[in-house]
């Protein structure tokens, strides 16, 4: 009797994993097959010369670029990664700090929060030339732009998250006469985690996009610069290799943030989106 239930449980378990595997395959396979088919089609069409190589180089040529020209690619990719990551960290830290301060002090909140709401709609990348004039070409203006573009979504989401605490908890901490700092640490930060990660995922790709675009006119290094430079000398494989590298780096950072969210599942809970 006991044996049979154990056996049933075991089969139920394998059935469960099997089902999960199948649903995973069902979710990923069609898209993966489609993408592979697209690349094969591209390779075949350019092999037969239907797509001329001056319009789109063959996948092979772009792949060859990664090995043959790897030093250049790595140099520029490092520049872009440093800008994007530093900006990502600075922007998010300042955003979290600012949101905490504004949550703790009602006067500060009243004075500055309206601007935060307004500034969400300001396309900060447009101001790149202004920053270049202010700070000179190179890392400083790019870092400023990336940090700003990362800052706003995180700040707004943190404000929402810090204020999403269950009223019962607020009252409990009030009766325990907790200080604002204790309230922040014990209930407001934990409550804001899902909001924070929703913003982080948004700004992970935002950081790379702003870095690449500001490099067009603000720097002499980085993947954005490399793409423009290669296009002027008509070095198409280099150009495409740089584009794919920036896409790959973006997805990598996004993946890392998602992984961190999964690892911290106890606090991040079900993520709500911005």
């Amino acid at each position, binding site marked *: 009797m006991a044996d049979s239930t154990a056996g049933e449980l075991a089969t139920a378990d394998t059935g469960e994993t099997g089902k999960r595997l199948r649903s995973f395959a*069902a*979710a*990923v396979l*069609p*898209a993966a*097959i*489609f*993408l592979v088919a697209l690349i094969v089609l591209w390779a075949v069409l350019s092999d037969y010369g239907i797509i001329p190589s001056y*319009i789109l180089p063959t996948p092979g040529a772009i792949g060859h670029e990664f090995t043959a020209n790897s030093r250049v690619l790595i140099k520029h990719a490092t520049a872009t990664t440093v800008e994007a990551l530093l900006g990502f960290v600075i922007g998010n830290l300042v955003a979290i700090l600012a949101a905490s301060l504004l949550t703790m002090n009602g*006067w500060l909140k*009243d*004075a*500055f*929060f*309206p*601007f935060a709401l307004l500034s969400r*709609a*300001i*396309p900060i*990348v*447009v*101001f790149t*030339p*202004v920053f*270049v*004039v*202010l700070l000179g070409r190179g890392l400083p203006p790019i870092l400023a732009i990336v940090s700003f573009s990362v800052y706003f979504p995180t700040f707004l989401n943190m404000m929402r998250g810090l204020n999403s605490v269950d009223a019962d908890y607020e009252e409990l901490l009030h009766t325990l006469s907790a200080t604002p700092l204790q309230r922040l640490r014990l209930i407001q930060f934990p409550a804001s985690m899902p909001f924070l990660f929703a913003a982080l995922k948004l700004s*992970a*790709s935002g950081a*790379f*996009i702003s870095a*690449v*675009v500001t490099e*067009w*006119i603000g720097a002499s290094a980085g*993947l*954005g610069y490399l*793409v*423009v430079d*290669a*296009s002027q000398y*008509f070095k*198409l494989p280099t*150009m*495409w290799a*740089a*584009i794919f590298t*920036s*896409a790959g780096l*973006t*997805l990598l950072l*996004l993946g890392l943030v998602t992984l961190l969210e999964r690892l911290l599942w106890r606090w991040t809970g079900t993520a*709500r*989106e*911005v």
Partner: protein
Amino acid sequence: MTDATTDATVLKSDTAAELPRRVRQPLLKPGQLRKIVLPTLVFILVLAGWQYVTVTGRIPEIILSSPTDILAVIGQPDGFEILENAGWTLTEALTGFIIGNALGLLVAILFIHSDIARRTIYPIAIGATSIPFVAVIPVLILWLGNGMEPKMVITSFLSFFPMLINALRGLRSADSEVNELLYTLSATRRQRLTMVRLPASIPFLFAALKLSACASVVAALVAEWLASDHGLGHLIVLYGTMYRTPSIWAAALVGTAMSLCVYGAVVLAEQLATPWRRGLPSTSN
């Protein structure tokens, strides 16, 4: 018995409706004054400080121009040039915006009936929204030249994927009971689409429109940095090389105002199109 009680409640509610003599509310609640005065004060202080450091020459004029100088650009020939070129950029942005969103909706409608097609395209569309597509702008410029076309292509690309994702979600968001009802009435697919699915998807569609409204203006402007002889982006770079700092600021501010206006227009259209949702939190993507 039951009649009596209902009568009583009706009576009660009638008198209650008559009773409230509108108690005069103070124009501002005590805390509200602070909420208006403080931000205004901060705004004035920042502007005054900015004006001070520039006018006194603590920061050279060529690096940071004073707010009054930026405002004065309106009256100068540069101001007219900026407005003229803003129209060019707006045309690119809106054309791409409309094409991209229309295509996104169309593809979603085509794919809604095929499960396999939907499952193929949905993950790709999701992935596509996090890839830095703007990095492809130099390629588009190589292909299509430095006219309006590459900018329209990139703005339609940027609008296409959010619309596709949201339309796929929205078209399937209709209440299943309503769908069943139409099934029992043996409605055709097209009737189901126009009567149930499209109306149900409207809030989702507007969420996508709001996402891509600002993005398309910015993308058009940024694309003009690289290769163009018209448009706000072209002007900004031109002024940058000539160090006409107040004009750079003015052009960037006009670009911001333009993207805000496009966003505002979408929000207004949403209010008009979905009166039943007024005051509700917007459907987040």
